[in-house]
């Protein structure tokens, strides 16, 4: 997966041995500090609840710099979705790189149509973020498209410019 946003650009590859966790390698360019560095990441599924029409997840995520272990982050994230609705949150603490960042975000979405398996799926979303470096909350629209194993998510805010997320699941 690849992400490009106001604070970082990164490319991230991960492997999921089982549903409980995934391990990954991430290469990130931090736009605030100007540093670029590789890190190892772990995502752990704390809890999942499935129903006939929904899935709810709670994750713990953490990562550590491979060439500088003072660069690290940990986050608590969760989501709930049906085929029509999506709600997610994240609370992330980033340390090292000469600054401390605490970022919290919430994302809500709705699918304007329900595609069958294999169709192009579309989500209209809104994301709201706030961090300690800039005390203002920013809220912006996000469009998510996915088909097969490919997902693209594009958001825009006049303050942070484009926020792009690309993912392919092998």
């Amino acid at each position, binding site marked *: 997966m690849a992400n490009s946003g106001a604070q970082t650009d990164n490319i991230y590859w991960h492997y999921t041995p089982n549903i409980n966790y995934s391990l990954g390698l991430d290469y990130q360019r931090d736009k605030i500090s100007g540093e670029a560095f590789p890190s190892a990441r772990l995502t752990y599924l704390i809890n999942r609840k499935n*129903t006939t029409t929904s899935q709810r997840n709670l994750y713990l995520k953490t990562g550590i710099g491979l060439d500088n272990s003072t660069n690290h982050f940990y986050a608590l994230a969760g989501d709930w979705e049906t085929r029509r609705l999506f709600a997610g949150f994240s609370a992330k603490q980033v340390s090292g790189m000469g600054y401390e960042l605490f970022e919290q975000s919430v994302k809500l979405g709705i699918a304007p*149509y329900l595609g069958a*398996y294999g169709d192009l799926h579309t989500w209209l979303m809104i994301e709201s973020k706030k961090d300690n470096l800039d005390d203002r909350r920013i809220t912006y*629209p996000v*469009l998510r498209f996915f088909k097969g194993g490919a997902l693209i998510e594009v958001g825009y805010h006049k303050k942070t410019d484009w926020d792009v997320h690309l993912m392919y699941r092998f």
Partner: protein
Amino acid sequence: MKKFLLAALLLAATASQAAHHEMGHMHSHEGHVHDTMVDGQKLSVDAERFDNFVSAVPGDQIVVISVQGMVCDFCARGIEKTFGKDSSVTKIDVDLASGKVLLSYSPDTEIDRASIEKNILNNGLNTTAIQVVEK
């Protein structure tokens, strides 16, 4: 201005796709549930989809799995990949709308319900029913 036009274009494309899908789905679902009883329960599947599936694999054993948590294509792809590795599975159909997975097995296969349930669980989903349809 350019950004506004791009956003408007994306929204228009989405609305067009929505209209296309909604028009395709404007049909009655009455009579789309088979009255076949399997294991003491009604076989609740889309009749047309089930018939199409069965007719493509004449003579094979048909298994209908009711799945919880299957809310997106990523979930469905995982199921398809998992059962696709089983050489005794001759056809797979994942129906997101109904939360059903249809599998066909070669006639001489002994259906292992525990293994099926385990495969579903290994994909992070839950099984509520496994129905083997008598030939």
